[in-house]
């Protein structure tokens, strides 16, 4: 399942959807809104996307993972819109016959997602300012937050 959603992510349903009697291992990754980033305090995040391309890239990543590991099932859900502290921004679930395959595939999916999928987050700092996070650009303020 590849999905962009403005609703809360149901990680339990996503995890159930990848379970299989062919799999001995399931790995779930959740990205959650962290309060502190390099000493600065976040009160909320806003996520925006280029939806058509983002969904296409997510499908490409799943396909690439399947060429590299014996993935039984995989699912990626990314939330968009306004997220509060602790909210789940992204969930990646993958099942494989053996555990190291599932760990490697899951890590690959979230690492590549953060590199190539056109989704952006905007920090809402506790001083009332907001700031798009664009890694590598010459931003006036802090370094980008990362999970």
């Amino acid at each position, binding site marked *: 399942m590849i999905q962009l959603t403005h609703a809360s992510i149901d990680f339990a349903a996503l995890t159930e959807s990848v379970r299989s009697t062919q799999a001995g291992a399931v790995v779930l990754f959740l*990205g959650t809104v962290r309060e502190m980033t390099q000493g600065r305090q976040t009160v909320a995040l806003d*996520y*925006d*996307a*280029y939806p*058509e*391309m*983002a969904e*296409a*890239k997510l499908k490409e990543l799943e396909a690439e993972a399947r060429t590299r590991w014996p993935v039984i099932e995989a699912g990626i859900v*990314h939330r968009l819109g306004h997220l509060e502290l602790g909210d789940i*921004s*992204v969930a990646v679930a993958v099942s494989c016959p053996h555990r190291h395959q599932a760990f490697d595939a899951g890590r690959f999916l*979230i690492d590549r*997602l*953060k*590199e*190539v*999928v*056109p*989704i*952006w*987050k*905007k920090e809402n700092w506790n001083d009332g300012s907001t700031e*798009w*996070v*664009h*890694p*590598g*650009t*010459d931003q006036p303020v802090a370094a*980008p937050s*990362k*999970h």
Partner: protein
Amino acid sequence: MKTVVKLFARARDLAGSPALELDLSESATAADLRLALGKRVPALEPILSSLLIAVGNDYAAPTTPVAGRTDLAVFPPVSGG
């Protein structure tokens, strides 16, 4: 020829619009599009060199043709996850 480009995130904020119409030559490449954007929206200058250009669902190389495409997008480095 008139070519519409979608903008996202800080690029959209700096341009003040989710899309721009540019006038490009028929042989224009992604590199030409970047130059045309900088001229059209000077406010994009601080991030112009880091902007990514997408043609359809793929990232464009500097030499990728863009003229006449109806599925162009320009945006800063991604930060999902």
